[in-house]
């Protein structure tokens, strides 16, 4: 078998994944910390103040990466949920459910920083602009997935139902993304784009991209850490957990 495919199959096994994630976690956290520190240095000291918004535009460096992560985490959750539902891979269900609270946290931070940013620039904490509203809807979708996951007793059935809900909710993601084009009111239009030149100065752009990288790495580290704990709980009766954590047995006796 192709070594990459073999590795991928191995990764689906909970004990292998547990060890794999444990090996990678410190590196990912360290990378996120370093990239985050470099990004924040660039954002708070190196980047010049905006000619219109002054220093308040620096909230963007938290707001925008978190907004991207809120969407990315939802995509990651839905993709893993899809894999879990179709191929019945336990690990994918675990990963999907582990990414839900992280994504919800990022979305919440996006809303909070957005309203902090809105006060000095728009003069109001909150406005019923389409993009803000869609972000709020995204947060509620996360809450629905988390709520459904915790409302069902059987863990695997709960994960499958919540993953299915995430797939249904993915209809909302294009609406979130394109709403800025459809109902453009107060929120500024997109300034960073993958294709074509961005409408933002390079000295302002690189901290943003560094921070976006840092949040992605942090997201994966956090999801791996959460999945490790979830796997231990899910597989608590299995041999590999018993050999790994002999202390828990004495606790139960």
């Amino acid at each position: 078998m192709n070594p990459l495919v073999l590795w991928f199959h191995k990764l689906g096994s909970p004990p292998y994944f547990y060890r794999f994630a444990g090996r990678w976690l410190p590196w990912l956290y360290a990378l996120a910390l370093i990239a985050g520190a470099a990004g924040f240095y660039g954002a708070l000291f190196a980047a010049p103040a905006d000619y219109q918004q002054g220093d308040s535009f620096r909230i963007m460096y938290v707001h925008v990466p978190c907004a991207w992560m809120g969407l990315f985490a939802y995509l990651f959750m839905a993709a893993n949920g899809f894999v879990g539902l179709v191929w019945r891979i336990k690990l994918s269900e675990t990963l999907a459910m582990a990414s839900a609270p992280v994504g919800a946290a990022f979305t919440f931070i996006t809303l909070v920083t957005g309203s902090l940013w809105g006060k000095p620039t728009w003069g109001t904490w909150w406005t019923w602009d389409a993009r803000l509203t869609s972000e709020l809807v995204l947060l509620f979708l996360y809450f629905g997935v988390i709520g459904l996951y915790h409302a069902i007793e059987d863990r695997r059935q709960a994960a499958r139902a919540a993953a299915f809900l995430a797939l249904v909710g993915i209809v909302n993601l294009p609406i979130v993304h394109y709403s800025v084009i459809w109902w453009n009111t107060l929120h500024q239009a997109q300034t960073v784009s993958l294709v074509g030149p961005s409408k933002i100065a390079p000295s302002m752009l690189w901290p943003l991209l560094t921070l976006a990288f840092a949040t992605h790495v942090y997201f994966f580290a956090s999801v791996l850490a959460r999945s490790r704990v979830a796997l231990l709980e899910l597989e608590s009766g299995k041999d590999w957990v018993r050999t790994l954590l002999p202390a828990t047995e004495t606790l139960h006796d």
Partner: protein
Amino acid sequence: MKPGSTSAACIALLRRDLLLVWRRRGDALNPMLFAIIVVALFPFALGPESAVLSRIAAGTIFVAVLLAMLLSLDALFRSDLEDGSLEQLVLSPHPLALLLGCKILMHWLTTALPLIVVAPLLAQLLLLPAKVLPVLLTALALATPLLSLIGAVCVALTVGMRRSGMLLTLLVLPLIVPALIFGAGACNAAQNGFAYSAPLLWLAAWLVLAVILAPLAAAAALKISLT
């Protein structure tokens, strides 16, 4: 029509559900009553000025109708689950999505249709301008099936839970927000004398998509929660 064929099964299911609703026809009036009460509360809260009321009329009616439908949604599969006929539906040789489509149609006929019938009365209570009423009715006719369809998927996921009411609201409302935006948006556009066909067409397009996909999704969800 041959007994045992899929169409015969669908008709039998529709007839049974209609009969069940007819035997307890008092309950079927509850959503209507709820919507009237909610709408009647707004003038008490906002004052009887006709200008204010007619400006918020369409949106208020939309919200009241959606809430009233939501109230009846968690009963969609409950009695079937309790007497075991839901499992028989899942086990039957006929396509589950089609059978669930029949149940969703029944839900729409027994809760949304009365609400649409009572909508002109609600519009009068809130002094909606007469020229907006046809737009409101069209928007409701397009948006309520969407709620039945999307709601059925969420109900299928929460079926068998003890207290699913609040959770169901949390699941359904974010998914149904675009229906509210487009539906109420069309009414507001008509009220202000703008073109209103675009949001209605969006609603219709989404409805076409939901009619095809939602029964399939509901069937898949039901299989997840009944295992």
